[in-house]
């Protein structure tokens, strides 16, 4: 059976008639000459009139099958096989680090045959791409799941948290998680709550440019993150990513205060309202803000890797229909985080619906779409009305962190009072007590 990946309709017919499949060398006659090339798969989203041939020069060309006069297979298909260089030998004596793959750009590799970006085949691929890691640590790697980060769900947070908790028991001195950038901040927050008091550093890292590109930021992010995990006296959950647009430094962000703030730049991640936790530059780690001493946290470490699907996040906007709230309630939302304007405001018709939401047994929390600064419901009447309606102001917690925290809280208590108390308690550095200059 021939592989006809991506081809359909007219082109599929054409290839079948020629008994050709992907990988076969096909010779076709156009009205301007004969073209010989290897049939490569078609993007599923592309039209059904062109066959794509990879020429000897490496170029791909698309030819309209309705204009081709003849086609014959001149050489049989050859399945390309990928055999990366083996991961370098581990050096005994170096810190033991676990590298966990979850998918995303950092772990993807282009299929040179199709041009599609595919997830790395296994974790050793990743390690083999950056052999320098073996100079820094004894790295074991493992692929936990392989999905784009927009498909990450609470169940993935739970799986990841459990695996990391096990790594502590296995004696790893640090864990580095590769993850897609899009929802990296959410996962970092989730792990921060599930792994409170973890005695080792857990660093989530990512890439904005896939690792098949010579310019990929994956290399520096991996080297920097593994270096920090192996050598810095820190514990807790962090995000490690490019400090700026240069391949020079990796910034370490606290897991509950980090946000992807640019769609495509390497330095997309920013710490909001707190200083960077650390910077790795010129091979050295500079600690800036490492939180409470790790001994304290070690004593407290009791992983709670459970999450609920009952938390929702709603951004308020001037034309928002208030009916969104009852509709979310009906579809199972138990805790609603509302990203209000300014100090945490919504329109008065929405306040009425918040009151109803709370009276029906739901929990409503306020954050601000300003991103920077804390909400305050005591300054304006609108705020006081919100408090009266039962809204919980979440200080300067990031909206994304708030919805993740709500998901974790809902899974870890059944008491509404306890849930409210937990939402308002600073469990993992998600709130600050003072807003500092700078």
């Amino acid at each position, binding site marked *: 059976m021939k592989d006809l990946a991506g081809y359909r309709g007219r082109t599929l017919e054409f290839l079948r008639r020629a008994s050709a499949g992907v990988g076969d060398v096909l010779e076709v006659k156009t009205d301007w000459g004969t073209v010989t090339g290897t049939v490569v798969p078609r993007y599923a989203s592309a039209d059904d009139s062109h066959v794509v041939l990879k020429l000897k020069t490496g170029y791909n060309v698309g030819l309209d099958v309705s204009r081709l006069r003849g086609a014959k297979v001149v050489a049989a298909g050859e399945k390309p096989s990928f055999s990366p260089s083996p991961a370098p030998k581990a050096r005994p004596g170096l810190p033991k680090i676990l590298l966990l793959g979850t998918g995303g750009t950092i772990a993807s590799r282009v299929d040179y045959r199709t041009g599609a970006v595919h997830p790395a085949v296994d974790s050793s691929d990743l390690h083999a791409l950056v052999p320098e890691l073996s100079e820094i640590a004894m790295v074991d790697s493992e692929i936990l799941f392989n999905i784009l980060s927009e498909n990450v769900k609470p169940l993935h947070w739970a799986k990841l948290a459990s695996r990391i908790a096990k790594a502590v028991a296995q004696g790893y001195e640090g864990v580095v998680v590769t993850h897609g950038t899009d929802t990296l901040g959410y996962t970092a927050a989730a792990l921060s709550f599930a792994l409170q008091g973890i005695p080792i550093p857990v660093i989530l890292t990512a890439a904005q440019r896939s690792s098949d590109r*010579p310019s990929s930021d994956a290399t520096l992010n991996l080297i920097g993150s593994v270096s920090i995990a192996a050598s810095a006296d820190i514990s807790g959950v962090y995000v490690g990513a490019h400090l700026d647009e240069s391949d020079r430094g990796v910034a370490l962000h606290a897991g509950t205060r980090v946000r992807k703030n640019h769609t495509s730049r390497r330095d997309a991640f920013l710490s909001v309202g707190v200083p960077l936790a650390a910077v790795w530059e010129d091979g050295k780690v500079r600690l800036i803000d490492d939180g409470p001493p790790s001994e304290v946290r070690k004593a407290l470490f009791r992983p709670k890797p459970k999450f609920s699907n009952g938390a929702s996040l709603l951004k308020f906007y001037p034309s928002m229909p208030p009916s969104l709230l009852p509709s979310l309630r009906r579809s199972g939302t138990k805790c609603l985080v509302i990203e209000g304007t300014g100090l945490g405001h919504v329109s008065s018709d929405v306040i009425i619906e918040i009151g109803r939401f709370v009276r029906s047994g739901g929990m409503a929390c306020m954050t601000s779409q300003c991103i920077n600064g804390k909400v305050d419901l005591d300054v304006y009447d609108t705020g006081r009305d919100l408090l009266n309606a039962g809204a919980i102001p979440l200080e300067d917690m990031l909206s994304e962190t708030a919805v993740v925290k709500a998901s974790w809280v809902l899974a870890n208590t059944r008491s509404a009072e306890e849930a409210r108390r937990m939402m308002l308690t600073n469990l993992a550095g998600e709130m600050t007590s003072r807003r500092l200059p700078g």
Partner: protein
Amino acid sequence: MMPGDRPGLLVGLEVHQQLSAPTKLFCNCPITKTEEFPFSFERRLRPAQSETGRLDPAAVFEFSRDKPNLYLWSPESSCLVDADEEPPRQVSREVVETGLMVAAALGSGVVDEAHVMRKIVIDGSNTTGFQRTAVLGFGGSLMVDGTKVGVQSITLEEDAARIMGEDERSRIFGLDRLGVPLIEVALDPVSGTPEFVGHVALNLGRVLRSTGRVARGLGTIRQDLNISLDGGAVVEVKGVQKLNLVAKVVAYEASRQRALMEVAKKLVGRGAKVKCAVKEVTRIVPWGGSEVLSKAVGEGGKVDCVTATGLSGLLGWEPAPGFRLGREAAEVARAHSLGGIVHSDEFRKRGISEGEERALREYCGAAEDTALVLVAGEPDRAERGAAAVASRLELAPDGVPAETRGATRDGETVYMRPRPGAQRMYPETDVPLITLPKELLSAAADSVGEPWEDTVKRYTNSFRLSRDLALRLYDSDSAPVFEALARELMVEPSVIASILVEMPPRLLREGVPEDAMNEARLVELLRAIDSGAVAKEAAPDILRALGAGKAKTVAEAVGSLELSRMGESEVSSLVDRLVRSSSKLISERRESALSPLMGELMSEVRGRADGALVSRLLKERLERALKAPRGRQSSKALR
């Protein structure tokens, strides 16, 4: 065989021509040369594994040089796309159309759907580590001196960043040129003389310009040459900037390759096998006699010795003047940022004594027929350089190794890196496929301008230019302005063409600076001639005055040179005066006095009046003088 023919010489020409598009190929940045770059960032490129897990040799070479790249950029010419911080946008319709016009002008076949590819290039000249490129068409031909030269492919591609220098820490690039749209036309290899290859390049440039959609001016066209001799590998020479260097580079490369083949022949004659080894010799001898080596060691560097069996005497041997295997090895070392090498064929000349040589030979276990090459520098770099020199010398029996070389300004070539492997191209998934329906192709064919041969014919027929002047005009950047002025002004087209394309190079040789004769100045001058403010004969003096800084505008120059145009009455009275004072000459020579009188007048007029006017007035006045009765003339004088 024609004189200058090189038997077995094959040259494949690739011309890279910048298009005159409003923006870069994959973003909305304007195309402009930036002088001041306010921002910079530093990156490292790594070789990426191909689909088989293998690494490209050229990519590994660049990575082994291990220097980060420093990119300078400015908002006036670059955005996040250039910095590889944002995905590219799709190719503009206009640029695709231009590509199709070139295909039509060359009679090439066009693909139905173009796919933008990533061609791995990790010398730092692309921030991404690859060049985006799409092949549009194949086949077609052009005629050159009566010979048909086939077209291999027509490709749309983005230009690379501009290399601005290299220091100890990094290689420095400016991003203003990165992403500028280019069209690459690759021709079938041709045989013949270097001059013929030069003509091929010239004529292809003319075909490209005939579309009216390509950029003009210095640096907008660049030639790469794939040069080989019978029995040798293909050498790719990159970046021949000037057309007149094509023939020179081909001739240089042919001689170089021939010389390397001679070395290989000698090796075969010796029955020698070349085997290389590298050993560190930093502390084996004191290096006191060699400034290069003692300096390197003094700065904390090391000295590696490459031993190459069978090559003794062949590193310094010159089969042709200037061409030595030793020079090839030195170029390889230089490509690894090392100052140079010292080899055993020149030890005495370079301060290594016989005793030192003996010590080195003994330490390295090198017999008499073995050549030694000393490579010195910063330890890591010296090690990589020595390994590269060893690999190069082992290729000596092959004669000409496949490699990529760069063209120098003098038409020579220097080693850059090994030839890239075949597997270095994969699809650019961020850019949509480009469908090229037949209607688009026929529309492009309709908008292709006049073939260049027809334009040149039109210049000779309608504007009465000589073929030579017409060709010079076509090849210059001034053809469009010539056509506009020739239609608008009353000045003779040949005068316009001559002032635009002949006068500036002539005055340049005299030392008049180029910017004093820019197009705007020349147009101003032609308009002044047209309005009668100045005579065409004064043009060189005006440009000289501008060049010397005596004036800022043409009008000022006219004033400063007292060149303001003489009116007809002024010329007339001048003629009158001269004729009267030359009565003796006139009475003796009659009509033939015209020529000496004309000469005298023109030197007095010094470009302030048109020669034709002076000549007409003088003829009229002379006729009257000759017709007039002599008596009346004298009586008039008595009054």
